[in-house]
């Protein structure tokens, strides 16, 4: 069959003949292909997913603590969805309290970062020191003078 002296033409003819034979066979293969359809039915032989059965190993009243832990673990896999919903309700601090805390928190932490001069002002404001205002006005400019750059006198 594999002769050395085959001309290219005869080779081509042989190939074409082979292809014809194969394509004729292909005709027969096409028909079964059309009939094959993917079935939408999945067969499941176990009862486990059907009736949502629980885990088979159980312990009661502390007989075997490891298995009791396992029971909680296994059964919580089913109830994960419920737990997620409950999380919103179970927050330790209610939303209102959080808001109130934040208000005061911002004030107290903000004070920390004020400069000393400003802190004094805040303090005096809180203490209702009307009499002290004059003193303040004296002290503040002096402080200001201190903090400003003093030009070296030649």
């Amino acid at each position, binding site marked *: 069959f594999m002769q050395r002296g085959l001309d290219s033409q005869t080779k081509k003819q042989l190939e074409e003949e082979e292809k014809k034979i194969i394509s004729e066979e292909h005709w027969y293969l096409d028909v079964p292909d059309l009939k094959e359809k993917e079935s939408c039915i999945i067969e*499941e*032989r*176990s*009862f*486990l*997913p*059907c*009736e*949502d*059965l*629980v*885990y*088979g*190993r*159980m*312990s*009661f*009243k*502390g*007989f*075997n603590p490891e*298995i009791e832990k*396992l029971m909680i*673990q*296994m059964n919580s896999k*089913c109830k994960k969805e419920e737990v997620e919903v409950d999380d919103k309700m179970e927050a330790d601090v209610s939303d209102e309290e959080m808001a109130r805390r934040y208000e005061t928190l911002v004030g107290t932490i903000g004070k920390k970062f004020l400069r000393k001069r400003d802190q004094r002002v805040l303090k005096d404001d809180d203490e209702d020191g009307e009499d002290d205002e004059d003193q303040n006005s004296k002290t503040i400019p002096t402080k200001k003078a201190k903090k400003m750059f003093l030009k070296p006198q030649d």
Partner: protein
Amino acid sequence: AGGGAYWVDSQQKRYVPVKGDHVIGIVTAKAGDMFKLDVGGSEPASLSYLAFEGATKRNRPNVQVGDLIYGQFLVANKDMEPEMVCIDSSGKSSGMGIIGQDGFLFKVSLGLIRKLLAPKCEIIQELSQLYPFELVLGMNGRIWVKAKTVQQTLIIVNILEASEYMTAEQRKQALAKLSGN
């Protein structure tokens, strides 16, 4: 679960191995590296000694003939011998493995097992109020019970066996008598 699923519920006593089912098996033979387990099916299941949590070639599990094993089926079809393992897909034992000493093993119908395994099963809830005990339910119809005394164990066994045919009222009467004692 059960979204578009249809199943036929029938009463049967003979178990057919199904992949993924948790069952109680009895070790009948040790053949080199494999154990033969009787699971109540048409042929014994095989269990490799490496299919336990933390088992290596040097660290072999201590399994003797006559031991009880709680495991799940890795392979179970009608053409091949069923194969069991005592670890799950992540390599953890999660409660599977050799069931300890003492306790009592008995056989019930498959329908009762499914009833007992239903979520929020009344029988189990009522029994759990009685005394502390441990319970292993195999899908092959086998139940293993262990309580503090032999008497308590036998009481639980009798209630479980009888609850197949008792009505709920009869059961509650029987339990009321027991808790009264």
